């Protein structure tokens, strides 16, 4: 069991290393209020190019639906205040006409 635990810890350490398989650090979101909150929350589970490629055809209602889906269906731990910040940022920077 101890050997197993050591192996698992070693594996955990490796998994904790940067997960980037390709250079996603090259993805830069537009500057604007809320960008860091978007990067931290959305970027916890997926690279931020998901936002860029889904632009600029979504209006506020659709961006809100995406954020709600991430929270309710995918279990993202985002509180109400951050959720609002994220929807506002996405609508302004990557929404229709953005």
């Amino acid at each position: 069991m101890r050997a197993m635990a050591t192996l698992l810890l070693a594996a955990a350490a490796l998994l904790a290393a940067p997960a980037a398989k390709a250079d996603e650090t090259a993805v830069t979101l537009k500057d604007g209020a809320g960008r860091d909150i978007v990067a931290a929350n959305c970027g916890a589970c997926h690279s931020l190019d998901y936002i860029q490629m889904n632009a600029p055809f979504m209006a506020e209602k659709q961006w809100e639906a995406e954020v709600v889906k991430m929270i309710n269906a995918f279990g993202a731990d985002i509180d109400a205040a951050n959720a609002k910040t994220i929807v506002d940022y996405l609508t302004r920077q990557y929404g229709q006409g953005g």
Partner: protein
Amino acid sequence: MTALLARRHMLGIGAVTLAAPALLRGRALAAAAPPLSTGLPDGVYGSASLEALPGKKPLIKLSYRPPNYETPISYFDQAITPNDAFFVRYHLADIPEMIDAGRWKIKVGGEGASNSFELGLDELRNGFEPVEIAAVCQCSGNRRGFSAPHVPGVQWGVGAMGCAVWKGARLKDVLAKAGLRKEAVEIVVDGADGPVLDKTPDFVKSLPVWKALDENTLIAYAMNGALLPHWNGAPVRLIVPGWTATYWMKHLVSIEAVTKPFTGFWMKSAYRIPTGKFPIVQHFESQMTEANEPITEMVVNSLITAPAPGHKARAGTAIELRGIAWDGGYGISRVEVSSDGGKTWHAASLGADGGRFAFRPWRFRLTAPRPGSYEIRARAGNAVGQTQADALIFNPAGYHNNVARPLPIVVA
């Protein structure tokens, strides 16, 4: 992290080394501008890039994490898609980076089976009759990027698909060993990849028993005569010829017969189409509602692979058009080409038949008598009378887009 590893352990691979070899930790190689189709959301043109994942040729990167990379159109000018150019599609970003195939186990059982056992790769290869089949693996959302209006999701162009010769054991033979009970209604399959967060629903799918027992449904351990690439589900993935790739579970670790319809998120909420809106034959009965149903078979479709868009030709000189056509496994019966915006159509010549689940090559010699700009379209039909849609059948997830795409050429 602990929970994540515990989950893997429960799946029987906890002790398998998860260490990432340098090969897979390396950065993708950046290359030239990606060959994107027209008509995608504007954002794609700024964010997509042509990059090589370890072991792959440069493909069109749509998202880094989870990795979603599509095959450039030039690779479809042949009926079999090379392994290193085959598209990559993941839903969730926790992907085991190195898999010790010698210790790989698939758990087989469930309440709908009389026996449960673990299946290793050697037994899968040697204990069951090997079967080879050429089949198209196409993402349900292939061509989502052309939806009008656009819909959220990975904004695929034409390359979230490929055709390979798969080799493996029949799922039905493995299920026979498990002793499928008559109460079984669905077969639930899971792969080793999973979510980053514990709360995110793991990607788990089910098949109706009748489709699982189809003689063409395989557990594949080889692809085009080689081992499966890591990014395409090594060491074993499910092959469900005729049906969209959502059922083709990668990194397969579990096969479970159940006596009630499976209620996981990826069946109940995702990968669904409006009931009755598409002209399809096969339905997943135990998962249907009045409003919607799971996506099942691929709709008939075609692609012009040559010449390239914007090709310049001389009036009166023949242009050789080439392409491929495919469907849900009924067999392509005809491909037609139009150069006048769909007013008149002319039969193309069908090429070698690689089987009813494979890409069917076709060609057509086109001579434009007068200079001008032309839009060339191709449309396919199959043995059960299905044809490509004249106009987009809109659905919120952007599935089943088989509208003929115009190829612009210039004749001088």
